[in-house]
């Protein structure tokens, strides 16, 4: 039975050292009682406390690692149902499926395509996390051969998709030391699969057709002493995927229902309409899948999905910001344009990237707006003529150029007059969207 906040509090050091991020041990205990933090966050907790707290100290959803080294990916470890309650911690891992009946040339082509699915966004690299190799026939030889080829040509952690313990064992003989995800165990084969997972120390996907079945299979596997598991319900309709994942997450967090205290894998690959498959995948990212498997390498589908993952998994408490400063882009000379924007990372990178792609050297002055966007900052008085004039002054950008012309975002055209008055600079109103900057800058420098 779960412990109350006070019961937990009695077991803590009561030093209020704040290392857990909470102001007091009591606050930490209260949060732990409702599953919003994990005992791991208190470095001072005694072994005795850990032992006494037992299940209450365990995070409501286990953290499971797939792969190793630089490309390892962590699944689960979530503490809340809604990101505004704290944050979501471990972004949904995205795997791309390859079948073992693909001709070798097509396979390597697909692997290259996966490798190319890497995108810079807001200064962060977004990419694919795993290759899922699916056995299609009963022949384990082609499965093993595909596993060999994939591991020779891709650094990504593998997900081995076969229900046949023989094929799984043969594949593990090759890649077993690399912590692939074994997918997996079902009613008929769970004993052999669990034994293999134990032997190689690999995480294991446990699959059942409905939640009751999943609950008892999860108990059987964990009762057998193996806990690095991932839950899977093979639902097809988007609604079923959503409802199953929600029920699992909710019971794990609110009810501390141990059989569901594991990350969830959702497969969304078999939809013929690429947009509909993407929509199901998006639903899984928002609602509780720790891993999804896609059957496409089309960047037009993958980029939006990875962007969505970044959105959902940013910490809602802290906007990502850059330092307020004068940034040099390209090789600006004394006639180079000077532009201003805010220090919200998204805004800064949107603008910076466009200036860069225009190939016009420029100075970009970022105003400290507490990491808020242009209009948000303007509406809250953080990106007004005063602050912009001050930033121009403070960064001494005027010493780098021999003109006095500054370009402001099109959305805040209204502040031009006052800014000109305050700063003594000529104010040019730029386009509204950064995407129009290259054209703007090219005609600007032409004059």
């Amino acid at each position, binding site marked *: 039975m779960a412990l109350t906040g006070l019961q937990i509090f009695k077991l803590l050091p009561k030093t209020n050292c704040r290392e857990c991020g909470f102001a007091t041990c009591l606050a930490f205990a209260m949060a732990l009682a409702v599953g919003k933090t994990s005992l791991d966050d208190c470095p001072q907790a005694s072994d005795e406390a850990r032992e006494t707290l037992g299940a209450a100290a365990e995070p409501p959803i286990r953290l499971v690692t797939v792969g190793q080294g630089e490309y390892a990916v962590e699944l689960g470890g979530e503490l809340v149902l809604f990101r*505004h309650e704290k944050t979501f911690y471990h972004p949904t891992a995205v795997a791309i499926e390859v079948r073992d009946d693909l001709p070798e040339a097509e396979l390597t082509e697909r692997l290259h395509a996966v490798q190319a699915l890497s995108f810079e966004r807001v200064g962060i690299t977004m990419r694919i996390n795993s290759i899922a190799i699916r056995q299609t026939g009963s022949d384990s030889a082609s499965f093993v051969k595909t596993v060999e080829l994939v591991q020779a040509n891709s650094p990504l952690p593998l997900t081995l998709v076969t229900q046949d313990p023989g094929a799984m064992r043969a594949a593990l003989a090759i890649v077993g030391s690399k912590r692939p995800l074994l997918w997996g165990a079902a009613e008929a084969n769970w004993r052999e699969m669990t034994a293999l997972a134990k032997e190689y120390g690999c995480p294991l996907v446990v699959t059942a057709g409905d939640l009751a079945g999943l609950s008892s299979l999860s108990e059987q596997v964990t009762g057998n002493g193996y806990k690095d598991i991932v839950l899977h319900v093979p639902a097809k309709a*988007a609604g079923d995927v959503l409802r199953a994942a929600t029920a699992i997450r909710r019971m794990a967090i609110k009810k501390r229902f141990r059989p569901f205290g594991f990350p969830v894998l959702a497969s969304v690959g078999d939809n013929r309409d690429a947009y509909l498959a*993407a929509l199901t995948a998006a639903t899984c990212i928002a609602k509780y899948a720790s891993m999804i498997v896609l059957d496409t390498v089309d960047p037009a589908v993958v980029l939006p999905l990875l962007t969505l993952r970044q*959105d959902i998994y940013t910490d809602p408490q802290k906007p990502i910001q850059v330092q307020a400063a004068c940034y040099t882009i390209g090789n600006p000379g004394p006639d180079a344009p000077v532009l201003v924007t805010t220090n919200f990372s998204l805004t800064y990178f949107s603008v910076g990237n466009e200036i860069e792609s225009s190939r016009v050297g420029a100075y970009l002055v970022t105003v400290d707006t507490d990491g808020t966007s242009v209009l948000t900052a303007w509406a809250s008085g953080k990106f007004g003529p005063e602050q912009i004039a001050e930033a121009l002054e403070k960064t001494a950008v005027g010493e780098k150029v021999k003109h006095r012309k500054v370009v402001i975002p099109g959305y805040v055209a209204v502040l031009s007059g006052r800014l000109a008055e305050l700063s003594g600079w000529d104010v040019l109103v730029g386009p509204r969207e950064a995407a129009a900057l290259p054209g703007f800058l090219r005609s600007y420098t032409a004059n």
Partner: protein
Amino acid sequence: MSFELHREKFPCRISEVEIGAGVAGNGQRFLQVGGASTLPFLSFDGPSGHLPVIGMEVWDVVPELWPAPLENIFGPVAGDPVEWARHCAQEWGAEFICLRLRGADPELNDASPEACATLARDVLDATGVPLVVLGCGNDAKDNVVLQKVSETCAGRRCLIGPVTSDNYRTIAAAAMVNGHLVIAQSPVDVNMQKQICVLLNDLGVPQTQIVMDPTTGGLGYGLEYTYSVMERVRLAALQGESSLALPMIVFCGFEAWRAKEAKTGPTDGVVQGVAWEALTAGTLLQAGADMVVMLHPEATRVVREHVKALAGGEMTL
């Protein structure tokens, strides 16, 4: 541990709102939205209300700098909003039309209130589906324009707005007198959303005549904030905050196509802009969107099908 499904029971229900005048025999269709007593599509918890409705946006002016995938489709009709709207309703399956009166902006075309109102009525007559009418964002002008629209379309139960805490009296009063509904807008803020709804209630606007616009952010451009604000609004409503127990409208097409990635991505095969728009909508559906305003016909189609897939399924939990 034996398995027993945990069901969430909320004390409050989202109000049910009817848009469009469903007078029998006049051919005008109407829509019911709202009514949920669960989080979106979680039908195992209880009645999850009417399915979200998917409409399409039409502009009164030809948009400048339109990305190719939109230009290709709308190019032939963009100069004629009535024809554009008719296509949306009759060929692309829009369940409602959202007419954005950008041209009313004094800095754009400064279109007259009369011209705007006539256009709104023509769109209503040509399409036969319910109509949402948006002003241009200039408070003073919107007051006269939307008042005129309300009068000219009297009795057709249009959804008109937005109104904000700073500017609501004139528009809301005109909408009520003429039997319309209003959009209560707030800037990504739960408390401000509550404030405008309470102000409208105080003015005498019934819960059945308000739809909330908690502000939409496009995928990768503020979605993470607007998603969570909507989720908080919906949770607060279900848990008993009755002033927020209203349907929500989101403008996915408009916001998504502003994104650079929508404009510049591949336009062959899967069109990145369409995916961008569809995913913006698909995600906000999970946050509680009841009315989804789209731009591209293909994105409209797939989101409509996705709603069906979310409502469907055969698994018993």
